[in-house]
């Protein structure tokens, strides 16, 4: 078969029947562009949930029980943007006659402010300052203790033993119960030194937490967990979101493909005369099918390319400022910091819509292709 001949004929058929080609192309362009943008939005939602969840405190990867001899720089491998050094101890807080158990995390306030978003959730007072004997406490715990900003809180490792005194500089409220009720923060070395330390690793956009987890070289005594391991509920929610988006894509294309199928059937049957004439000139059935496949795939791929470009442009336009869904997410723990969605493209979100378009277009063409390939030229010629 002379592939170049048939490609040339297919191209001329498409180019010289511009109205039909344009109508079909417009349907494919709009479907592909819409799906690319929707998928980018869906990925943006997942990104926002992860970003919101990890940016408060934990980071994408958390390493615990790191021996004191290991420097934080050791953990700054490819893809890691910030390494926050912390120490965590279980303590009792006392004020007046009230007590509350909490995990007290010693932090470098400047580094934390640079990498995390917890300081933005300050409900009263302010975030601690480096070198100060200050305490940053969940609003609910502060209420339990009956403590106000500027009051002194006693910190001990048992309910009865009094250790150090810290001044409450601020309270926070995230809406996430384990965080609001289970964690408190003070600047470095205020909660007592221990041999080992913990690290919260914040990754650059698009870097896989699992790959960083696998690439960290730490002693066996250290434990490294990713956000997905610490928050399986969030992982499931994101997987569910992706699955729903895939189903939406297939369903949308199934519905759109009905329209595309009708248009393709009309497009192919409109040219039945040409196919009858070509058959009378000795064109093989296989060549007729090749011509139709080239027409369908050429049109679909060209229209898909435009659709991809349009979808990318739309995503790029929206990704900068983002879509503020704050009004819809303000009570959702996975949007504790910000409800702004930044659509993001992935290779899969760019490839899947065109592939679905091609698949459904070829499926739509099967029936008219079979019909034309099997029709005797005399039947067509008599009907002209």
């Amino acid at each position: 078969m002379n592939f170049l001949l048939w490609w040339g004929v297919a191209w001329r058929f498409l180019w010289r029947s511009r109205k039909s080609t344009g109508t079909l192309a417009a349907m494919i362009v709009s479907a592909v562009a819409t799906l690319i943008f929707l998928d980018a939005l869906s990925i943006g939602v997942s990104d926002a949930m992860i970003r919101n969840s990890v940016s408060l405190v934990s980071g994408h990867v958390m390493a615990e029980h790191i021996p004191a001899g290991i420097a934080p720089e050791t953990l700054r491998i490819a893809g890691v943007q910030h390494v926050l050094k912390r120490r965590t101890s279980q303590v009792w807080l006392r004020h007046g006659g009230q007590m509350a158990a909490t995990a007290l995390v010693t932090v470098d306030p400047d580094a934390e402010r640079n990498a995390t978003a917890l300081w933005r959730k300050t409900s009263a007072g302010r975030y601690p300052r480096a070198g100060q004997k200050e305490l940053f406490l969940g609003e609910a715990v502060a209420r339990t203790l009956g403590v106000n900003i500027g009051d002194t809180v006693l910190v001990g490792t048992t309910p009865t033993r009094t250790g150090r005194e810290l001044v409450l500089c601020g309270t926070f409220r995230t809406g996430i119960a384990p965080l609001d009720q289970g964690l408190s923060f003070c600047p470095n070395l205020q909660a007592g030194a221990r041999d080992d330390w913990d690290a919260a690793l914040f990754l650059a956009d698009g870097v896989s937490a699992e790959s960083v987890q696998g690439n960290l070289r730490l002693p066996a005594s250290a434990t490294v967990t990713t956000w997905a391991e610490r928050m399986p509920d969030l992982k499931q929610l994101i997987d569910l979101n992706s699955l729903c988006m895939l189903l939406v894509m297939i369903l949308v294309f199934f519905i759109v493909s009905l329209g595309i199928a009708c248009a393709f059937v009309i497009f192919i049957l409109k040219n039945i005369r040409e196919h009858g004439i070509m058959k009378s000139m000795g064109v093989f059935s296989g060549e007729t099918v090749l011509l139709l496949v080239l027409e369908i795939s050429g049109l679909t791929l060209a229209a898909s390319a435009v659709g991809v470009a349009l979808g990318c442009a739309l995503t790029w336009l929206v990704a900068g400022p983002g879509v503020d869904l704050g009004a819809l997410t303000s009570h959702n723990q996975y949007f504790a910091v910000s409800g702004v969605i930044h659509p993001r493209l992935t290779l899969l979100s760019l490839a899947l819509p065109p592939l679905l378009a091609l698949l459904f277009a070829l499926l739509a063409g099967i029936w008219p292709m079979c019909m034309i390939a099997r029709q005797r030229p005399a039947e067509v010629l008599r009907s002209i």
Partner: protein
Amino acid sequence: MITITGVTKAYASSRGLVPVVDGVSFSLDAGRSLAMMGRSGSGKTTLLYLIGGLERPDSGQIFCLDQPVHSLTGRSLAGFLRKEVGFLFQFGNLLSYLTVAENVAFPLRLNNVPVAECTRRVHELLEKIGLASAAGALPRELSGGEIQRVAFARAVAHRPRMLLADEPTSSLDSGTAYALMDLMFRIGREEGRTTLVATHDPAVTALADRTLHLQDGKIVEENDD
């Protein structure tokens, strides 16, 4: 050489099977021309399609250029059509999305003629039919006479050994029709082509070597020059 023996063809209709070609037999030497005369519905077009393999006979045998056309199917039939046969239809039937030059070149490209040879042959034919200046025009831009001339050029472009023409002049005025027929028979003789024309134009019979008169699917009269 074309040899047709006892060929019949009937179509199913609400009145039952209607015979369109009924026991036709004749032969024609290679390089000769034949005009098939008859009124509408006499079976001229069907007989032409049967000889060209576009229809299959219900019974009888058709041998064209040593090929058993009555039993050819699929690739062998398509191969026979693309190499040995040129069809000239009543209304030209040009491929509407191809230009004049592309239409004429199409059978050459189908037969894998090199592009340079293809271009030369197309130019030569368009010169012969007086349409070299319309090479880039689409069929919708041409008149009826021009369409038929291009259709003729396409039908003979690959130098088929047999040309089958189905009422090629019915949509043309007498002057244009005569010019086309003259061109067809003249080039046919030059290239040693066997030419069969279905027509109801008596003027065509004067140009053909032989004439068959058909009525109700049967040969009722036969004239040799």
